[in-house]
């Protein structure tokens, strides 16, 4: 049942003024219940252990602003946008400040070439895919969590959630060129962090062939 159908059904059972308020609240709850797993999944990728708090804050803010939503079908994107904005305070206070990153060094980094150069599995015929095969989904999530939020947010929204760069730009209220540039740096950082994570967690260690 679509949200406006819920509104129509409920409106028949109450007085006009109360009906509008009650049905608006119920429409919001229907949308929120439907979208809850997705919101938590996004929040976990954006802010890790703070996910529940961010979703909670998102639900409260969205409920207060629900009258601003004109189109039912825009509901999921609208909620995501509010969630992202709830995470922005954390983005500003990110644990690792982007200024600490050497961007010249980063620009020239290629994980593919680095693996070929370091040759971590000398007896492998498919070195690069063997490297990636060492990573479970949880490892990849841990690598993403190492990125500063300013880069993590567009990476998560575009590659995990399928939003367009233009839509992310609207959510963050920045030009689309800024999102594309953050995506570019975010991908480079992700590649470098994949290598560092593999080194730190022993994914490069393997028994040598006899």
């Amino acid at each position: 049942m679509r949200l406006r159908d819920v509104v129509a059904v409920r409106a028949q059972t109450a007085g006009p003024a109360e009906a509008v308020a009650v049905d608006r609240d119920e429409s919001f709850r229907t949308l929120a219940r439907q979208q809850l797993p997705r919101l938590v999944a996004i929040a976990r990728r954006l802010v890790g252990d703070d996910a529940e708090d961010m979703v909670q804050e998102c639900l409260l803010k969205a409920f207060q602003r629900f009258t601003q939503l004109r189109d039912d079908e825009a509901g999921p994107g609208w909620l995501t946008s509010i969630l992202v904005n709830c995470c922005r305070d954390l983005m500003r206070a990110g644990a690792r400040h982007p200024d600490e990153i050497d961007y010249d060094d980063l620009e020239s980094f290629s994980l593919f070439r680095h693996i070929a150069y370091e040759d971590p599995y000398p007896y492998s015929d498919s070195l690069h895919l063997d490297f990636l095969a060492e990573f479970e989904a949880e490892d990849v999530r841990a690598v993403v969590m190492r990125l500063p939020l300013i880069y993590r947010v567009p990476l998560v929204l575009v590659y995990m959630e399928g939003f367009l760069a233009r839509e992310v730009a609207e959510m963050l209220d920045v030009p689309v060129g800024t999102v594309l540039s953050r995506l570019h740096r975010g991908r480079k950082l992700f590649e470098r962090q994949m290598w560092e994570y593999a080194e730190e967690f022993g994914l490069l260690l393997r028994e040598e062939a006899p």
Partner: protein
Amino acid sequence: MIGCTEAVRRLWEYLDDTVDLDERALVEEHLARCSTCCGELEFATELRRMLAERSPDDLSDEIARRLNRTIEELGT
């Protein structure tokens, strides 16, 4: 004509389909004659797939219960 450095710089944008037609043609022309960059394209495709993958345990029962209670209490 572009070299490996330029081609590699555009590979993800190429996969994302955010390069313009001229740049797409340049990347494809380079890929047609460079097996190393074809390997890098295959690698980037797999890396991108891994990045998009979801882990199954995103919403625990406990968190779902607490957040659903928040939803039910809104406006009451």
